[in-house]
């Protein structure tokens, strides 16, 4: 989450005070990402240093200091909105690692390992859904954030389901379990970041 650009977005609506920025940030993201005051002021200082916002010049560094966006800030915000986040190389996914490792550890049933994680993820999704049910009908920002989280968790469960099915079929076909060398090759080919 880019706090820097979220603050620029809030200032694009008009000049605001530091305290006001923090409150509006939390309200717009459904209070899912709480911000501490220090984080707001550090970010504002950096934005000012980079010429993306201007303060009202008061020496008061407290919550009543006002800020407005500069034309440089507006350009930065417009460019950021259209810049895709870095999803091109897969992150080193802990869950994928666990399932791959479970295949090779004697006495461990990989399907049980998969089920433990599946249950945990569904429990997490139940909590998010409760939140949506209680609050999100009236709070569009929160509904969007909760949806994003639900889709993310859902995609992990789908991968677990696919892995479960693929491993069952492989076992039925008598295929050997993957060797670590195959992973190293894949990693090199994909340029995986750690």
């Amino acid at each position, binding site marked *: 989450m880019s706090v820097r650009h979220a603050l620029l977005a809030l200032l694009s609506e008009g000049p605001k005070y530091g305290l006001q920025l923090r409150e509006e940030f939390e309200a717009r993201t459904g209070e899912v*990402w709480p911000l501490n005051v220090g984080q707001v002021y550090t970010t504002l200082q950096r934005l000012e240093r980079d010429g993306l916002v201007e303060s009202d010049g008061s020496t008061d560094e407290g919550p009543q200091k006002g800020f407005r966006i500069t034309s440089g800030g507006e350009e930065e915000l417009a460019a950021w909105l259209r810049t895709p986040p870095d999803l091109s190389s897969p992150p080193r996914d802990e869950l994928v690692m666990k399932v791959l490792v479970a295949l090779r550890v004697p006495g461990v049933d990989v399907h049980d390992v998969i089920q433990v994680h599946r249950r945990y993820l569904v429990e997490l999704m139940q909590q998010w859904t409760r939140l949506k049910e209680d609050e999100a009908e009236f709070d569009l920002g929160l509904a969007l954030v909760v949806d994003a989280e639900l889709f993310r968790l859902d995609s992990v469960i789908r991968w677990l389901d696919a892995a479960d099915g693929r491993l069952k079929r492989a076992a039925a076909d008598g295929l050997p379990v993957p060797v670590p060398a195959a992973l190293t090759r894949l990693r090199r080919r994909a340029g995986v970041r750690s």
Partner: protein
Amino acid sequence: MTALELRGVSKTYGEGAAVVQALSGVSLSVEPGAMVAVMGPSGSGKSTLLTIAGSLEEPTSGEVLIDGAPLSRMSRNGKARLRRRSIGYVFQDFNLLPGLTAAENVALPLELDGLIARKARAAGLRALEDLGLAERAGQYPDQLSGGERQRVAIARAVVGHRNLLLADEPSGALDSVNGEAVMRLVHEACKRGVAAVVVTHDAQLASWADRVVFLRDGRIVDQTAPPAGPESLLTTPGQSQ
């Protein structure tokens, strides 16, 4: 009293070498007002579980009790009456009758149960109103959108005083916003005291349930713990910039 109880239910199809064990010793209780989701891959026995719970099929062994009454001691007529009065079904493909309007589709189970047409229609209309479909009551299924059709199917499943709702992939091919609307309706019905069993492979649907049970190869292998409140999600302080 438990709205639905399965005690050691097993179901086999075929004989000899061709025998298929669809369910093995499944036990499950659903209290009034609770929503239970059954998750599992294709072929895990989900749909068989639902048809046996709804008295549409008989278990090979084990017992099914609805409102405490064992189905095995009921006559065919008794089971048919139970299905008309107490159990509502929602299927993936809605199963609305194309020649009847939305209101007539919803009123149908009541009319079949012998309620006079005028009263049945009035009850059907009320159920449609509850689901925000009052102005669509006179439309035929092919004049309704997918989301509206599924809402009509849910109205039909809860009309009258049904206390058990059985749903098989109830959001079918609906998009996620309409799928969520469907689950909100099922959830509303549960708040009024209806017990619901929703069979699905979709985790987003299942996450509406109070409890999720996992079915694998005809057995319940796991279930979720009672959910913690959503507050626990919101305690992580500010994340990375």
